């Protein structure tokens, strides 16, 4: 680019466009971008006033020119973007840069919303391609709240043009965006993706943004952008509180904090920009000397490198029949529950391995990452040897991930390191290569060095390379434990890299495994291991971590340690470990007691078959609860508590069956879905819990499900009962359409429907076979149809 930005100087950006157009007569709710075509002269005039006031970079009037926001206006996104660039170019001086302005789509991305990553990407690609062709000098993605959306926009820019990419997000004074993104997660994720500059715009006034800038500069060494509002608008008058003089006198401090790209957002005018330009004329951005803080993150939580960060190993099918069954049945809720369980047990990062022969690992990785990120905010470590599966996960992963893993083999490095670079992920390098696992610590360190150098050659910083010195089983190769520990120390101290280690492998084949594992873990931590991969549900192992954190000084004043061992909850937990009181399964289910139900089921299985336990104990217990519910003696949450307790019992039964490889216990398959257009799925989820606890296998397609997918699944899985839910009046037609599609397919099945707006009459009208008033009734219907 001929007109490159020199980030070692102060560069003045522009101020608000919307505010200026409103002063020119734009009404509230009118599309500002239409003016690029209908009133280009007035748009250019605004740009010109900013250029005259001192703006070196002007943002095009294309903030909302995306296909969703402009739907129905009679023009397409490409047209409005190209016209926007022309309006700005007409006002630009020789050294003025025209930035293609990309704002939020206005729709929320999956898994929180209904817009897919691919649709978001395509929406941005359309704008960026048109803007770049029309001659924009850079792309600026601004006013973003959702990191997932930013990622889609950045990837669309980097994959479709060669222009520099700037990103600014909008935060509240709390340091979080509307959807919970934090300053560190923004910095880690976007630095990884390779944007050219980042910072803040909108939402806050200058004083509040500078406070956030202090945090941001600790987490990145990229050029920083500040573009605050003129305070907040008075709702009644629409006027902003801060004057140009006040604005400029606060912004004067921005260069000392390292910011070089300065401008204004809502409420600012050419007067603000002129004042800003004047007070910063003699200033230069301060150089940052301290290296940025490092870590990995989700969109809302960071695991900062430095202390011990526990990587949970439980999302992995190896040696776990129940987990394998969940994968085969695509039971994503089961997997998500394993994520939450590990988080509550103290994991800081979760390893995600979903490879199972015969399954499409690529789709499974993508769907699992999405399902976990919907309910759990821990950073993830994507564990696969298949580059396609890794890329499928990395593309939608919201945050900065870890890739597990590469090793010293040239072919592996060449196929996986470019992915880590592109998506900004950290990477684990295993100390092995074409010749196998080296037996000496020196040789393993040599492989580690080679992996680091390869990563550096791809532009991956050394701080993002984590080395696994490999744990071998001590009962088989006793002398190797010492070699591993020595290698950990050497990689930590001499190469200065972080290390990971799958610790549990050490004790394989020995009695009292936890004793050996905990002891080895402590020694490895002392040798420098900071990213142990362990089972956080094993209390003895996590106790060892807690103790180490005290002895290493990481746990200041032993606060976390004391909380762990001396809190009332901890004591209650210790009590719960004792045997349950005398109680029947019916009683424990009725009272919603989970652990008791699990324990009683375990005992019952000593003298009864799995089927007997289900038919004679668990189902009758649930039936009794259901009757009380129908009589109004208990209400829905109580029914669900009971169902949850029964569920613990069913889990024990399922494990028992999986362990001996027996036939799955199921009373039949039921397909559930919340129909297309509807996002309210709590009712459907309740029905699912109840049906599962009655022993049915539920295939849950989730919410906002198109009719074709329901028909296709019903046919493929030979479903005899389909349950559909809809909450909104507006989505009932979509339910009718789904039923019609099922009938057209000729597939023989019954359809039951439920949801707040439905009635028995209405259900009959749209062609349903059954109307389920509530969850209990859906179980009665299932009994009638499937037995």
């Amino acid at each position, binding site marked *: 680019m001929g007109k490159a930005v020199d980030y070692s100087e102060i560069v003045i950006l522009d101020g608000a466009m919307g505010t200026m157009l409103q002063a020119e007569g734009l009404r509230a709710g009118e599309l500002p971008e239409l003016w690029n075509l209908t009133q280009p002269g007035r748009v250019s005039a605004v740009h010109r006033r900013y250029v005259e006031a001192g703006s070196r970079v002007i943002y095009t009037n294309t903030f909302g020119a995306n296909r969703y926001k402009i739907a129905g206006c009679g023009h397409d996104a490409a047209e409005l973007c190209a016209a926007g660039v022309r309006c700005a170019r007409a006002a630009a001086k020789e050294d003025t840069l025209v930035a293609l302005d990309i704002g939020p789509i206005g729709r929320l991305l999956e898994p929180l919303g209904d817009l897919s990553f691919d649709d978001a990407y395509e929406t941005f690609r359309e704008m960026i391609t048109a803007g770049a062709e029309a001659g924009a000098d850079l792309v600026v993605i601004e006013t973003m709240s959702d990191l997932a959306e930013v990622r889609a926009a950045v990837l669309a820019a980097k994959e479709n043009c060669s222009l520099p990419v700037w990103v600014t997000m909008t935060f509240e004074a709390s340091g979080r965006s509307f959807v919970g993104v934090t300053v560190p997660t923004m910095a880690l994720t976007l630095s990884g993706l390779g944007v050219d500059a980042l910072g803040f715009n909108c939402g806050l006034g200058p004083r509040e943004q500078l406070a956030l800038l202090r945090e941001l500069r600790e987490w990145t060494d990229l050029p920083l952008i500040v573009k605050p509002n003129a305070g907040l608008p008075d*709702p009644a008058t629409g006027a902003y509180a801060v004057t140009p003089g006040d604005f400029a006198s606060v912004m004067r401090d921005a260069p000392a904090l390292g910011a070089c790209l300065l401008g204004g957002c809502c409420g600012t005018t050419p007067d603000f920009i002129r004042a800003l330009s004047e007070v910063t004329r003699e200033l230069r951005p301060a150089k940052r000397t301290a290296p940025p803080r490092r870590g990995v993150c989700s969109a809302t939580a960071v695991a900062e490198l430095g202390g011990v960060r526990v990587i949970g190993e439980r999302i992995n099918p190896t040696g776990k029949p129940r987990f394998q069954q969940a994968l085969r049945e695509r039971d994503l809720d089961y997997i998500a529950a394993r994520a939450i369980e590990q988080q509550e047990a103290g994991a800081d990062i979760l390893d995600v391995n979903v490879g199972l022969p015969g399954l499409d690992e690529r789709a499974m990785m993508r769907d699992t990452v999405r399902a976990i990120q919907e309910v759990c905010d821990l950073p993830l470590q994507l564990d696969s040897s298949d580059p396609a599966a890794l890329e499928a996960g990395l593309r939608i992963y919201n945050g900065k991930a870890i890739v597990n893993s590469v090793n010293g083999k040239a072919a592996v490095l060449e196929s996986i390191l470019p992915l880590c670079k592109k998506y900004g992920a950290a990477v684990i390098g295993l100390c092995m290569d074409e010749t196998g696992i080296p037996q000496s610590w020196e040789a393993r360190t040599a492989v580690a060095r080679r992996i680091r150098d390869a990563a550096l050659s791809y532009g991956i910083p050394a701080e993002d390379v984590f080395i696994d010195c490999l744990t071998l089983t001590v009962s088989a190769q006793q002398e190797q434990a010492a070699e591993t520990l020595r290698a950990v120390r050497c990689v930590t101290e001499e190469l200065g890299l972080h290390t990971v280690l799958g610790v549990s492998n050490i004790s394989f084949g020995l009695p009292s495994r936890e004793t050996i594992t905990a002891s080895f873990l402590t020694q490895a931590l002392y040798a420098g291991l900071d990213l142990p991969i362990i089972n956080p549900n094993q209390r003895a192992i996590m106790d060892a971590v807690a103790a180490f954190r005290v002895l290493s000084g990481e746990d200041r004043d032993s606060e976390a340690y004391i909380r762990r061992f001396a809190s009332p909850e901890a004591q209650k937990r210790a009590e719960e470990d004792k045997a349950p009181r005398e109680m029947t399964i019916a009683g424990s289910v009725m009272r919603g007691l989970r652990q008791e139900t699990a324990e009683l089921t375990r005992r019952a299985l000593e003298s009864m078959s799995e089927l007997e336990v289900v038919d004679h104990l668990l189902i009758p217990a649930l039936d009794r609860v259901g009757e009380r519910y129908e009589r109004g003696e208990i209400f829905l949450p109580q029914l669900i*508590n009971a169902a949850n307790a029964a569920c613990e019992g069913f889990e024990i039964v399922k494990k028992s069956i999986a362990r001996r490889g027996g036939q799955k216990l199921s009373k039949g398959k039921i397909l559930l879905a919340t129909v297309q257009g509807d996002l309210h799925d709590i009712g459907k989820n309740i029905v699912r819990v109840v049906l599962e606890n009655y022993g049915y296998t539920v295939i849950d397609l989730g919410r906002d499900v198109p009719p074709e997918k329901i028909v296709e699944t019903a046919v493929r899985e030979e479903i005899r009962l389909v349950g559909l839910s809809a909450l909104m009046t507006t989505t009932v037609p979509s339910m009718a359409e789904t039923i019609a599609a099922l009938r057209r397919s000729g597939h023989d099945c019954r359809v039951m429907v439920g949801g707040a707006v439905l009635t028995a009459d209405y259900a009959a009208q749209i062609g349903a076979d059954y109307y389920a008033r509530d969850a209990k009734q859906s179980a009665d219907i299932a009994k009638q149809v499937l037995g």
Partner: protein
Amino acid sequence: MEARLTRIDRAELLRYLSYRGGELSEAESEQIARCTERMMQTARPRAVWRLFDLLPDGTLSGCAYRPGGEDIRVLLADCKSVILMAATLGAEADALSRRARSRDMAEAMLLDAAGSAAIENVCDNLCADLAAVLAPAHLTERFSPGYGDMPLTDQIPFFRALDVSRRIGVSLSESCLMLPQKSVTALVGVSDRPQPRRGGGCASCPRRESCAFRKDGKSCGLF
């Protein structure tokens, strides 16, 4: 004027769950209290509103959004101006219930009901604050896109007019549902005279056949 969440009404929470007065054990009462408390602490209420003059032709001065339907015309018959308001509990409140879902559906339901009661409280507080500021003028009841004969698709121009997404972080789905789910948009009329509740009851409502309130033997109180 800040969005304020001051309390979550326990009776209202239970009403959302069709509670019929059965016995609640101590543990269950504790569970309800715990969910209420977590929602109180997690919700980050935000609101945005603007006052527009209502012109004789039914349009709002300086606003590209024109409220649709006969019901709103009747509600605003006596009004000189209209407040457009939007409020939300924020993404964190939705996440609470979502996270509970895969582990404990009962808790997810209680959190969901607590959120519904909470957003009502935020709207009530905002309207009370607005009424105080606008006194001696009087406010009508709140009326939302999707009520009566006002199409839900009114959400789209409504969102644009208040710049809802940018100001308080609420998005619309393709089918015009709001995300975070615990959000409300509403129109409130401003009049010189006190506004009586509107007569006619459910019989005059075009949605009477499919109304969720009616099915539980209740009414939305608007008609």
